[in-house]
């Protein structure tokens, strides 16, 4: 995988998430996909330490149901609008059929409305990301995505949109 291919993949993923095309985003994942957002410490073990998210593909499906279809997902009423900036893309391992990527993400998230006191400015989530991909036919699929927020050990408030 070249850096150009990596960027193409990551930019597509970012666009699908920003457009809330979450079912399409799920198509970018392999069946054994794990989606991890560590809490407190990026080197913690997700089975013995709390994580913000540690989802299998089935868990992701449930999360998508909650975001898009449940009809009573209060923290997404009104829904988040997001724009994410993906930079510093590096292909750190590349065997042809598998690849490992690093990048940084800066996510802006904003919910409009006037029922809350804190609607004057967007939330900003900077993070370092780590991906593992596998080539399936012509397409790359994520087997692992890790998002390490720089604020992982600081106050982290409700996260009910996809990162």
């Amino acid at each position, binding site marked *: 995988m070249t850096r150009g291919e990596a960027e193409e993949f990551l930019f597509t993923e970012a666009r699908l998430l920003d457009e809330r095309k979450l079912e399409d985003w799920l198509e970018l994942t392999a069946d054994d996909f794990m989606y991890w957002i560590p*809490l407190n410490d990026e080197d913690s073990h997700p089975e013995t330490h*709390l994580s*913000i*998210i540690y989802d299998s593909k089935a868990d992701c499906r449930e999360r998508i149901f909650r975001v898009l279809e449940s009809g*009573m997902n209060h923290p997404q009423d009104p829904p988040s609008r997001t724009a994410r900036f993906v930079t510093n893309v590096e292909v750190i391992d590349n065997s042809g059929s598998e690849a490992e990527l690093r990048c940084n993400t800066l996510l802006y998230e904003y919910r409009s409305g006037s029922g809350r*006191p804190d609607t004057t400015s967007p939330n900003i989530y900077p993070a370092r990301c780590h991906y593992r991909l596998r080539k399936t036919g012509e397409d790359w699929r994520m087997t692992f995505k890790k998002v390490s927020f720089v604020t992982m050990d*600081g*106050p982290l408030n*409700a*996260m009910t949109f996809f990162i």
Partner: protein
Amino acid sequence: MGSSMLTDQQIDELVPIEEGRVHSRLYTDPEIFQQEMQRIFYRTWVYVGHTSEIAEPGDYKTTHIGLVPVIVARDEDGEVNVLVNRCVHRGTTVCQQEYGNSNYFRCEYHGWTYKNNGSLIGITLRKGFKDGELDGIAKSLDRAPRVAIYRGLIFASLSPTGLALEEWLGVAKDYLDVWLDTSPTGEMVVSGGIWKHDYTGNWKIGMEGSDERYHINFLHHVAVVLNKRRTGQTSKLKFMPDDMTALETKDAGHGHGISEINSERWPMPWRDMYPQAYIDALVARIGEERTAHVLRQDFRLHLFPNVAFGPENIRVFRPISVDHTEVRQYHVALPTIPGVTDELNAQRVVVHRKFYGPAGYVGADDLEIFPRMMEGYRAQSCDTLNPWVWFSRGATTTRRGPGGERIGEDQSEVSQQSIWYGWREYMKAAGETAALPSRSAVRST
């Protein structure tokens, strides 16, 4: 300070909790917030941590009592000191880390140094101070005059007098004992992560929400739907009885409250929920009958003013200002005993993450609703508008438990009323010692 304090009569007028209502000014007025610090947070017991967080001599953690930054430090003798994180010289904090191990704390402004029991052992360029120039300065960090540990749970009070810890815990102690007796050693381990968050809203909003049962089917509708969609999941995730009237709430006195599923009417199917090796380990320590008793229960408990206990978490509320609150939700594990607790500990991480974490099904809902409440309370800034917040569900239909505690059925709001009964007593000039000991036993409903 004194002139702006609410009088006892004003307090009664703002908190007619017998009628199930309180004035929303109590959540928005900065002067009332200051009085709460003086009369509540600096008078009574406040939870500051767990012995497993500072297991070894020299271990410390930093936290707060109200607005006061403190260090909870285990000294060379193994004693737990709760020290004010403030250099006696110019007031700078002397400890910066959340956790650590050190024999001493040093102020990085001028280098004044303290032992981990608080005593001042080093003054930079001491000879340069002339006779008398150091006389007025304390020779140790300020400290909480009262520290008490109950089965690993560390509480501190900035007041030298007041109720003994176990007297203050009262009926709530029985629930802490149940919670602790689900550990094969009789103590829990605070380890495995801390979800730190804050919200725009008064600290009491979060405390009220910590064992609220009336909102579950509504606010947490998604969790209920997902729970039904999921089949073959662990029975631990079956968190609701079919008959919701079995959800009871209690006023345990001193501001403490409980919500629980009445274990007579809806006992947890505990034999199916836990590995046999774990059940055996509990039986070995506390016997068959007590094991059945502690495992069949499902409850939430809050101790006023700053801590709430869930099955696998301790939630600590820190007031920052009248409309800003920080919460630290500590993961609680069972002591590691291979073959006995490892499976359950793995399950506890999953349940905590999926339910109460920042992206969980329940925690995110609560955090959404607290700022909405704070925004609504701001309506009371107009004198002609309705200022009342209601907690009347169950206010007139309670029964008494064996300890004098008031009990309400059917998802009543008694565990929220408890906060206000306690608040009203603490906030009055006489405080807890004069007013509280027999309160829950004699109070008319």
